[in-house]
C-alpha cells in the first residue's frame, strides 16, 4: 500500500464505523429513493424519508474524523492541506457553475456532484502531497 507504514498507530484502515456508515448509507439511500419514487406520501413524510441517509453519512464522517485524529502530525498536515485544496476546487467550481446556471448558460445540475468532487479532489491532493513529503 502506498501509505508506507504510516500512520504511526499501525495502519488498520478506516474504523469499523466508517464502513458500517457507508454500508448503511447505500442501503438507506436505495430504500429512500425507492420509497420516494413508488409510494404516495405526505410532504413531511417525503422529507423525513429523504433525510434518512443523512444519519449513516454522519456516522461515516465521524469515523473519518476519528481516523485522522489518531494519525501522526505529518499525516494530519497532509490531510489538512488536501482538504483545503479540495475545498477551493469545490468552491470555485460551484460558484462558477452557479453563475452559469443563473444566466441559463448551462442547464441545471443536481448539487450531489459537490460531495463527490470534494472527496475525489481530496484523494488526489492527498496523494500528491504524500509524494511531496517523501
Amino acid at each position, binding site marked *: 500500500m502506498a501509505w508506507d507504514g504510516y500512520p504511526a498507530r499501525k495502519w488498520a484502515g478506516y474504523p469499523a464505523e466508517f464502513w458500517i456508515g457507508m454500508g448503511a448509507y447505500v442501503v438507506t439511500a436505495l430504500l429512500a429513493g425507492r420509497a420516494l419514487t413508488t409510494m404516495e406520501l405526505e410532504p413531511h413524510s417525503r422529507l423525513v424519508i429523504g433525510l434518512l441517509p443523512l444519519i449513516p453519512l454522519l456516522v461515516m464522517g465521524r469515523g473519518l474524523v476519528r481516523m485522522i485524529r489518531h494519525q501522526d502530525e505529518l*499525516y494530519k498536515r497532509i490531510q489538512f492541506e488536501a482538504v483545503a485544496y479540495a475545498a477551493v476546487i469545490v468552491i470555485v467550481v460551484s460558484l462558477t457553475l452557479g453563475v452559469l446556471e443563473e444566466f441559463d448558460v448551462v442547464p441545471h445540475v443536481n448539487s450531489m456532484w459537490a460531495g463527490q468532487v470534494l472527496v475525489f479532489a481530496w484523494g488526489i491532493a492527498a496523494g500528491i502531497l504524500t509524494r511531496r*513529503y517523501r
Partner: protein
Amino acid sequence: MNNKLRDLREAKGWSQQELGDRLKVSRQTIIAIEKGKYDPSLPLAFSIARLFSRRIEDVFLPER
C-alpha cells in the same frame, strides 16, 4: 530547518521504521524530517532530542 537526525539515527544503528516506532510517528514522518521536507512540531522535536540525549539545538539547526 536543517537537522542531524539521520546521523544520530545511523549512529544508533536504528532503521527509520524503528526510530518512528520509538517516537510514535510514521516512517514517512522520519523520512520527511531527515530530508528537511518537514519541520516537526515542538513536542516532537523535544522528543527527538530527548531520545538521543541531546539538546534540541544540537539536533535542529536554523537554515542560514
